[in-house]
């Protein structure tokens, strides 16, 4: 059916054409609405109480569902058609199709001022917006770095890590415990946290990195769970589920300050860390190591036959990702001033992964957008209160369906050579 759409009869009068399309979409949407209403009927309409043996019928829900799904289905089909068309068009276009926007983004004359402006806005942000806005932005920035870190592991080296949050926990507990027991300050622990992250990355990575694909995924997921469970159960060490509170915020020459000031300060720290991370990842990506990762993703056997030490390259990616996660863990502990194992669940790993994939694997801008979207969307959806997570889940599906490569398609720097000049 979809294939038939592409071959269109050019002689048709455009109005007729539109009408025909609309009619077809309406028909499709009607079918979909009937199907979805049928599907949701029992769960939307019936509520039972098996103890009191009563049944409540809520027929109105069916009506809402029918109307709602009709509207949604109509939008779905319209969007689907656009998606298929644009894919067909993409096929038609010339070499390395770049959209107008992407083209602009590739031009340094436009990107430089844009970046400068972005930076300016970023720097000025806390002065114009409320504590809340700054606070959630700090959260989002933390996830930007987490996303960039996981992007090294998953996006660059192709190692699916579903337990990434374990390293985040390592960082957070490193700071929390050192601060709690020895009153070490944020700045002292920050590098220590990074070291711990790298250490754990290597420790966990070593035995498992020879596993392939999804087997690696489940083992990392397992490691993530193990670390959380240990933190939960080993109360003598980690204070268990009740967590560690009153963690010090980052010190500022011994000045004491309010929550609002602290958030602003945190914001600037994060801004700097984000810039640093972007710089580091960009450099790595365009280096000998980045190339090896890329090759590793494509064909491991060929890689090894060409003299690349697979284990070493993977370990590097794994522990670099871990280092960044641990670094963020330290920041996180300092920001919330309280941590417990509830922050380090599998869902958190899944969200960070979603940031990377939704944003566009391998793309720095994509990861930033992904982090902002996934972290800020639930916040801005607060107005929808109970429907918030429903909409959130649906958004994730929709973005993936309509932008399977992520919001920003990764454009890696392709090594090219001026053939004429060199030859």
């Amino acid at each position, binding site marked *: 059916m979809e294939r038939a759409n592409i071959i269109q009869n050019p002689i048709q009068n455009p109005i007729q054409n539109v009408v025909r399309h609309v009619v077809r979409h309406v028909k499709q949407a009607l079918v979909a609405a009937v199907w979805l209403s049928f599907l949701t009927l029992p769960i939307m309409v019936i509520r039972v109480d098996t103890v009191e043996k009563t049944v409540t019928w809520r027929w109105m829900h069916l009506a809402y569902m029918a109307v709602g799904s009709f509207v949604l289905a109509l939008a779905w089909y319209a969007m689907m058609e656009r998606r298929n068309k644009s894919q067909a068009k993409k096929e038609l276009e010339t070499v390395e199709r770049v959209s107008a926007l992407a083209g602009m983004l590739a031009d340094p004359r436009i990107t430089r001022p844009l970046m400068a402006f972005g930076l300016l806005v970023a720097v000025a942000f806390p002065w114009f917006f409320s504590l809340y806005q700054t606070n959630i932005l700090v959260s989002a920035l933390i996830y930007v770095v987490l996303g960039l870190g996981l992007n090294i592991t998953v996006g660059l080296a192709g190692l699916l890590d579903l337990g990434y949050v374990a390293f985040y926990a390592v960082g957070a507990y490193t700071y929390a415990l050192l601060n709690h027991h020895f009153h070490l300050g944020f700045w002292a622990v920050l590098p220590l946290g990074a070291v711990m992250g790298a250490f754990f990355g290597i420790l966990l990575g070593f035995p498992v990195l020879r596993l392939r694909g999804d087997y690696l995924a489940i083992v990392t997921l397992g490691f993530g769970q193990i670390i959380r469970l240990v933190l939960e159960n080993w109360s003598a060490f980690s204070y268990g589920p009740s967590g560690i509170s009153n963690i010090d915020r980052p010190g500022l020459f011994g000045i004491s300050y309010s929550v609002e000031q602290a958030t602003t300060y945190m914001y600037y720290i994060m801004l700097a860390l984000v810039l640093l991370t972007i710089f580091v990842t960009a450099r790595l990506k365009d280096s000998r190591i980045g190339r090896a990762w890329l090759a590793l993703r494509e064909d491991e056997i060929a890689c090894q*036959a060409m003299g690349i030490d697979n284990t070493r390259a993977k370990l590097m990616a794994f522990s670099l990702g871990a280092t960044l996660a641990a670094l963020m863990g330290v920041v996180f502990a300092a920001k919330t001033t309280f941590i417990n194992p509830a922050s380090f669940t599998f869902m958190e790993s899944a969200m960070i992964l979603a940031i990377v994939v939704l944003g566009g694997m391998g793309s720095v801008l994509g990861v930033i957008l992904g982090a902002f979207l996934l972290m800020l969307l639930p916040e801005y959806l607060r107005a929808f209160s109970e429907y918030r997570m429903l909409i959130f889940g649906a958004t994730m599906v929709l973005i993936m369906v309509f932008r399977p490569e992520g919001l920003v398609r990764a454009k890696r720097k392709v090594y090219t050579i001026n053939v004429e000049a060199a030859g």
Partner: protein
Amino acid sequence: MAQNPTGMNGQNAGQAVLSVRNVSMNFGGLRALSEVDVDVRQGEVVALIGPNGAGKTTFFNCITGIYTPSEGEITAYPKSGKPKRADGIRINGMRTNLVCELGMARTFQNIRLFPSMTALENVMIGRHCRTSTGILGAVLRGPGTRREEQEVVDKSFEMLTKVGLEKLANEYARNLPYGAQRRLEIARALATEPFLLLLDEPAAGMNPQETEELKQMVIRIREEFKVSVLLIEHDMKMVMSLSDRIYVMEYGRIISTGTPKEVSEDPQVIRAYLGEDSDA
């Protein structure tokens, strides 16, 4: 021998670079290699031929560390290398990347390029084991790193030129025609600065014209880089005119060895492999 264009005689070409003694390889009950002895000497082109399923690719896999042979000794004699070991290095079961680092680089029967990297980048991967920038170097990108990167690009491009792919340097590997992909694999292997080049059916999927070009290319490369070549190939025209010596394998055993002429007249080889009216 008219076919031997370099005039380099197999017998006195130099010392051995690879010596394989008594190597066997079992897959479950299947004995894919059985007491194989093969020698390759400096500067030689040695061909390994035999019916399908004889064990030729398996032999390559054993030499390059992809499989560990069940029995036997494989010894390599790298011409340089940091600790120069004239008496050879035992390489059974050595990790594949170390074998490559030692100086034995291969191509694959089923092409294994990095499809979404450009031709140039594919060759640059070959340079990986001859360069050393670490994480810190990559992030700081000091002058040393930049020099190394430049050198990688230059050398890689040079390799592409050697195999005649300079025009296609910026194409993605997946978009290259089949023949170009085969040559790209050779360039990538050359970039690792090997002393022994292992080619697994390089002419498969090429028409006679292209095969001829390929042959010339191998000859040039052998001259220029002073490499030895071990070659698996079913195109007899190419094998006979290119190689100094030939090993014939059947059911995992070497059934015949000698100069192309000797081998092509061996009745056993004719029966098992070439067929009676061998005009191929």
